[in-house]
């Protein structure tokens, strides 16, 4: 049968079948995603693809670690001196904080306060950083085999990154704080401020904090941390306030936050299980 004698439906049947297959895969995936799981097809594809991706990331990291200092040259000596001074200051602060923590533990024991659940940290490598330019997501090389679950909180030593939204056996997807789906209740880290709001991403390198009352005590330069409502533990650093303004209705304040974490250079993250 030649193409010229075949009807258009038969001629393009493979295309039609692929469209149906794509639609069905989408339905199956969305159904599984509602439970925080990956459908079997995506799970298989991701597991297979994550092997070379992991190897590529590891190789890139190795090159960066071994030879990354070469282009920086002389700047390293000055940076080294400044870091040594900073380490000394931080060691002194650390000693003081340890003493305060011990005092706190003793007081809590005396008052009979039961300690809340302490999350277990799990270090993971980032194997894909924003694979689709439309979404602010990353893929990490730890999955349900390492005890990672949906809604687990992801951080770096300097601040909040986001939360796990989908898991398979060997990888997990993390929605970043800069994505519009990444939301966290936050507060100002200042003893005399009770300002609480919701931080939400807007696909830029800043985050918007809204739902603040018009009288909220929040100023540029304030540090913002997680408030502890929902899945995020309290006190995780988020960022610094850049500007504060009243919203269009003049009823609430809106603050623009510069996150502590550089979301474009994530390499290694910590998952709080």
């Amino acid at each position, binding site marked *: 049968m030649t193409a010229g004698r075949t009807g258009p439906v038969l001629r393009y049947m493979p295309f039609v079948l692929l469209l149906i297959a*794509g639609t069905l895969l989408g339905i199956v*995936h969305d159904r599984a995603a509602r439970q925080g799981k990956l459908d079997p097809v995506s799970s298989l594809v991701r597991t297979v693809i994550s092997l070379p991706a992991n190897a*590529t990331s590891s190789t*890139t990291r190795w090159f960066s670690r071994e030879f990354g200092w070469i282009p920086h040259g002389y700047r390293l000596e000055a940076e080294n001196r400044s870091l040594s001074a900073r380490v000394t200051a931080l060691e002194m602060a650390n000693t003081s904080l340890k003493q305060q923590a011990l005092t706190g533990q003793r007081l809590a024991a005396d008052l009979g306060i039961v300690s809340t659940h302490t999350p277990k940290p799990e270090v993971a490598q980032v194997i894909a*950083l924003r694979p689709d330019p439309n979404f602010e997501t990353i893929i990490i090389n730890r999955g349900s085999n390492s005890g990672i679950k949906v809604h687990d909180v992801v951080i770096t030593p300097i601040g909040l990154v986001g939360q796990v939204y989908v898991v398979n056996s060997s990888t997990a997807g993390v929605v970043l704080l800069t994505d519009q789906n990444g939301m966290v209740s936050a507060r100002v880290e200042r003893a005399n401020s009770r300002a609480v709001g919701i931080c939400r991403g807007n696909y830029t390198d800043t985050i918007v904090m809204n739902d603040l009352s018009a009288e909220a005590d929040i100023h540029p330069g304030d540090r913002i941390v997680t408030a502890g409502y929902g899945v995020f533990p309290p006190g995780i650093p988020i960022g610094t306030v850049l500007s504060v303004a009243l919203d269009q209705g003049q009823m609430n304040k809106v603050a623009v936050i510069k996150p502590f974490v550089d979301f474009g250079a994530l390499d290694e993250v910590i998952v709080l299980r």
Partner: protein
Amino acid sequence: MTPYTRRLLVILVALVVAIVLQMSTATSALIFGAQVDLPLCVAIVGSMLCDVNTASAVGFTSGLLLAAVAAPPNGGFGSIIVSRTIICFVIGWLESRIVRDSAVLAPLFGVTGTMLCAVLFFAFDPQKDTSHWARVMTGTAIYDGLVSVPLFYLLRKLAGRDYSTALA
């Protein structure tokens, strides 16, 4: 190995390499904040070298690979696959019916293919932030257009062209 099998194999390997590079290095090579969509780029250029149904399969594979890796947080898995399948089908159809093996068309298909793909995705799965979506679409389309030119020559060299549909 027949030329068709070889071509298919080369495009498939190129798609896998593209998705691995997209995962590991795409954000390190931003131009004015725009990020390339390598799997889509390979699918578009690969479709220029195939017949219409094979082009659809290339688009489908590209969509499946990216959707499985990116797994959009608010739905859109099927939309990624279907939009790429349609765009690659259209490119395969144009290549077999109207245009023939023209490197000049690679950047044109790169830009318009990426834009139409994003428009289809938006139509199937409307996004909350339209301005972000439009910004990303424009940046990615221009980037894909630029990458399409060397990619076209590379893939044509490695995979060869589908001469069954070419003019004499």
